[in-house]
């Protein structure tokens, strides 16, 4: 099947009900997207599907066909959110970080703290705590 990931056309040989998470990590060799719970609860696997945050562990590969997929690798490493997470100590083990950043990408410009809380309500962090994460996003 043909996919468009981070602006690049890719041809992968995966059954249509494969999780998009596995297509990205295994078939596309893009391991930046993480697996936490595998059941939609933690948000670690968040990617953008046609610009909207979704849990890649709950998306069949078939639904990504002819859609635009963006993963953390697509941000290139120097994105303002990536820098802000590093500068404000918003990552410890880092498992939740790619998902947090991908969810934050859907925020409007100059979001309020409330906007950030709502946008990240589906993302769980077990080590950093949310204050540093919110601070990084508000200052990015």
């Amino acid at each position, binding site marked *: 099947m043909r996919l468009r990931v981070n602006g690049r056309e890719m041809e992968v040989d*995966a*059954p*249509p*009900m*494969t*999780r998009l998470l*596995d297509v990205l990590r295994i078939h596309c060799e893009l391991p930046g997207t993480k697996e936490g719970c*595998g*059941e*939609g*609860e933690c*948000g670690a696997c*968040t990617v953008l*599907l046609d610009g*909207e*945050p*979704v*849990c890649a*562990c*709950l*998306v*069949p590969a*078939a*639904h990504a066909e002819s859609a635009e997929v963006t993963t953390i690798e697509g941000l290139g490493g120097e994105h303002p959110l990536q820098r802000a997470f590093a500068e404000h100590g918003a990552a410890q083990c880092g498992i939740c970080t790619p998902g947090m950043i991908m*969810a934050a990408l*859907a925020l409007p410009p100059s979001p309020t703290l409330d906007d950030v809380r*709502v*946008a*990240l*309500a*589906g*993302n*769980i962090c077990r080590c950093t705590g949310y204050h540093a994460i919110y601070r990084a996003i508000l200052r990015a």
Partner: protein
Amino acid sequence: MRTAAASLDLVRPRSVDDALRSIADDPSLAPIAGCTDVFVGLNAGTFAGTRFLDLWPLEELREIGIRNGAISIGALATHTAIQESPAVVSRVPILAAACREIGGAQIQNRGTLGGNVANGSPAGDTLPVLAVAEAVVVLRSATQERRIPFTSFFTGYRQTVRRPDELIVAFELPPLDQVQWFRKVGTRAAQAISKVVMAVVGGERPRVAVGSVAPTVIRCTRTEAALAGGATFDEASRIVESEVQPIDDLRSTADYRRRVCGNLLRRFGTETQR
């Protein structure tokens, strides 16, 4: 994923008619929409089906519009699309409110109204709203269309009147002129399954529906009759507490749920100042 993806088949229809033909030929096909329930089951290895029918690309099932005075919401409308629909927000704000409390943004972007109803969890947050709005479930097969009042749709725990060759195509909600109210009680706002979820419509024909307190969402008809007959909210609260049949489970106890039902109804009374 515990279920091997290679063992799963996906039929990908090009239109709703095409989908209805496929499911008529093979009623063992399980429809999939946003997959936020189906993939949880597949990931856990608890979903029995191996053959699926993909509804997600069927744009005709996403439409939200007004038809003969009723608001018609396609089965594939996502919780995000429903919150963003001006027709829903102006006519049935409690439906937008229920969708806002389903999971987080990632779940709302994929989860659909049809999936929430077809999944049939007694904790489904949109169900009490559809029950008090007296919604009609539009079921279609290759040969006919049936319109089922929402309150007759569920027949037991996760049991519905949907036949294996039917799809839910839409929900129709008649105009609601009376005051409407919704409240979900869970551990936290996002990503928490309801302990109790209640929707109420006021006016001369009051309607009260509660989720998570019985095998299916229920309309509390004795409470409704008492309110219609002029009972105070204290009296009605005692009736609702006796009318619900909650159980103890890992999220909450039956006693707590009963008490919350009474308190929520009193809260409806004070917040809407009848």
